[in-house]
C-alpha cells in the first residue's frame, strides 16, 4: 500500500447547512434547497458570486422528473454563467469532485449541495433501477430485501455477534450544502476551518453474487489510502443498522465515538460531512473519519479524514 496522498492545496469545510424531514408536504425541491444554500453561504458572508465551482449530487429517479438537477439550479442563480457539475450520486461524491477541482489551482472556493424528496415515490422500488437491468432489476428486488440478504450473510458468518434485523428503508426528504475553501482563503473565512486531510472512494462489483457481503474491501482500501488511524470520532453513513457493524470492522475504529445515520437518500452522505464539520469545529472531536455510501449493500464507499485546527 502506498503512503496516504496529501493535498498540495489543503481544502477546508468552512460552512454547512442541512435540512431533513420525514416528508416535505408542500415545497418542491427548489423551495426546499434555496434556504439551505443561502444559510450555508450566509454564515460565511458569501453569495454565489464568491463561489469558484459549484457541484451537486441528486438522482432524477427519486423525483421521477427528467433533468430535475438542472431545475435545481434555480436555487443557485447561475448567472452570469457559473462553473458547475453534477453527479447522479450522493452529494458526498460531489464533494469528492469539488476537492479535486480545488487542486487545479484556478479556483479557491466551492459550493457542494445535495437534495432529494423520495417521499413522493416508492424508494425501495426506485432503488431497484440501479441494479443490473437484464438479469436482476426485472425481478424487482427491493432495497430492504437486499439489505436483508447482507444481514443474514453476516449472521451466518458468526463473526458479528448479534446482527440486528433490517428495518424499513429510511424515507426522508431534505437538502444539505457545504462551502469549501483552500488554504488562506479558508482561514480568512472562519476561525474554525475543518480540514479535509484525505479522501478516497472505491467501488465493488455490481453483481451481488460475486461479492462477499460480510466484508467491505472497498472501505478497507479507501481507508488505507486515506490513512485512517488515531481518529477520535466517526460519522458513518449507515442505511441499515447491521451495516454499522461491518463499517466499524472495516475501518478499525476501536474506541472512536461513532455517529451513524441514514438521512435522505442522496443527501445523507453529504449530511455526514456537515455533522462532522459541526462536531469538529465546536471542539467535540479533533480528528475524525467520515464515511458515505451509495448503491446496494454498501457497494460504493467514500472515506475521508477530517481534522480541526491544530
Amino acid at each position, binding site marked *: 500500500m502506498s503512503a496516504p496522498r496529501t493535498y498540495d492545496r489543503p481544502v477546508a469545510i468552512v460552512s454547512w447547512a442541512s435540512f431533513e424531514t420525514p416528508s416535505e408536504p*408542500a415545497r418542491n425541491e427548489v423551495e426546499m434547497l434555496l434556504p439551505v444554500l443561502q444559510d450555508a453561504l450566509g454564515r460565511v458572508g458569501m453569495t454565489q458570486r464568491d463561489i469558484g465551482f459549484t457541484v451537486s449530487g441528486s438522482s432524477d429517479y427519486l423525483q421521477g422528473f427528467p433533468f430535475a438537477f438542472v*431545475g435545481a439550479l434555480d436555487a443557485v442563480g447561475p448567472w452570469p454563467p457559473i462553473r458547475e457539475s453534477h453527479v447522479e450520486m450522493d452529494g458526498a461524491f460531489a464533494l469528492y469532485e469539488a476537492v479535486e477541482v480545488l487542486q487545479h489551482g484556478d479556483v479557491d472556493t466551492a459550493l457542494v449541495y445535495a437534495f432529494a424528496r423520495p417521499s413522493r415515490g416508492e424508494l425501495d422500488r426506485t432503488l431497484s433501477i440501479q441494479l443490473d437491468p437484464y438479469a436482476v432489476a426485472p425481478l424487482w428486488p427491493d432495497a430492504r430485501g437486499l439489505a436483508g440478504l447482507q444481514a443474514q450473510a453476516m449472521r451466518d458468518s458468526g463473526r458479528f455477534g448479534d446482527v440486528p434485523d433490517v428495518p424499513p428503508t429510511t424515507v426522508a426528504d431534505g437538502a444539505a450544502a457545504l462551502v469549501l475553501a483552500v488554504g488562506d482563503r479558508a482561514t480568512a473565512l472562519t476561525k474554525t476551518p475543518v480540514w479535509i486531510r484525505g479522501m478516497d472512494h472505491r467501488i465493488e462489483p455490481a453483481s451481488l453474487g460475486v461479492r462477499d457481503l460480510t466484508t467491505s474491501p472497498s472501505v478497507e482500501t479507501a481507508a488505507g489510502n486515506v490513512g485512517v488511524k488515531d481518529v477520535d470520532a466517526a460519522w458513518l453513513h449507515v442505511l441499515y443498522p447491521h451495516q454499522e457493524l461491518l463499517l466499524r470492522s472495516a475501518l478499525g475504529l476501536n474506541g472512536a465515538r461513532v455517529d451513524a445515520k441514514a438521512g435522505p437518500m442522496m443527501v445523507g452522505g453529504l449530511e455526514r460531512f456537515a455533522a462532522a464539520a459541526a462536531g469538529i469545529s465546536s471542539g467535540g472531536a479533533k480528528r475524525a473519519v467520515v464515511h458515505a455510501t451509495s448503491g446496494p449493500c454498501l457497494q460504493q464507499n467514500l472515506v475521508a479524514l477530517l481534522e480541526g485546527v491544530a
Partner: protein
Amino acid sequence: MSEPVTIVETPIRLDFSYTPGVNASRFLRSIEQGRILGQRCPRCQKVYMPPRGACSMCGVATDEEVELSGKGTVTTFCVTRVPSPGLVPPYVSAWIRLDGADITSMFLIQECEPEEVRLGMRVEAVWVEESERKPNLGNIKYFRPTGEPDAPYDDYKDYV
C-alpha cells in the same frame, strides 16, 4: 440454441406523486380563478410567468406577486402542418410575452389564419368556461388576435 438473443424486454414502471410546490400552487389556484399571477425577482426585477418560487438567474426567492392582464405579444411562432394528437393541422404555436412578464410562454394561436400570425402581433387569452376551470394552464384554450396595432420591435427584440 445457437440463435443469439437480440432483444430483452424488461418492463419498468415507477409511480410518483408530483408536487408543484408552494409558489406554483398559488399560481395554479389563480389560474383556476381566471387570473394570471406572476412573481417578481426582488433583485433583477424580472417577472416570471409561470412563477417557480425562485429567480433562475439570481437564485433568490420571488415573493412579490404581480397580476398580469392576459394580453401579450407574439415573439416567435411555428406553423405545424403535420397531425398531432388533439390538434388539427395547420395549427400555430407561439412564444408569447405576456404584458408585464419577462419570460415568454408557449400557447396556441387561433381565430385567425396561420398566414396572418407575425412577430409583434398583439394577442389575448381565451379561457375555458368558468364551470370547467381546473388548476392548470389548460384553462387558457388559446390566444387570439386583439386587433391592436403590432408592438414595436424594441418591445420584444430581446425575446425573439
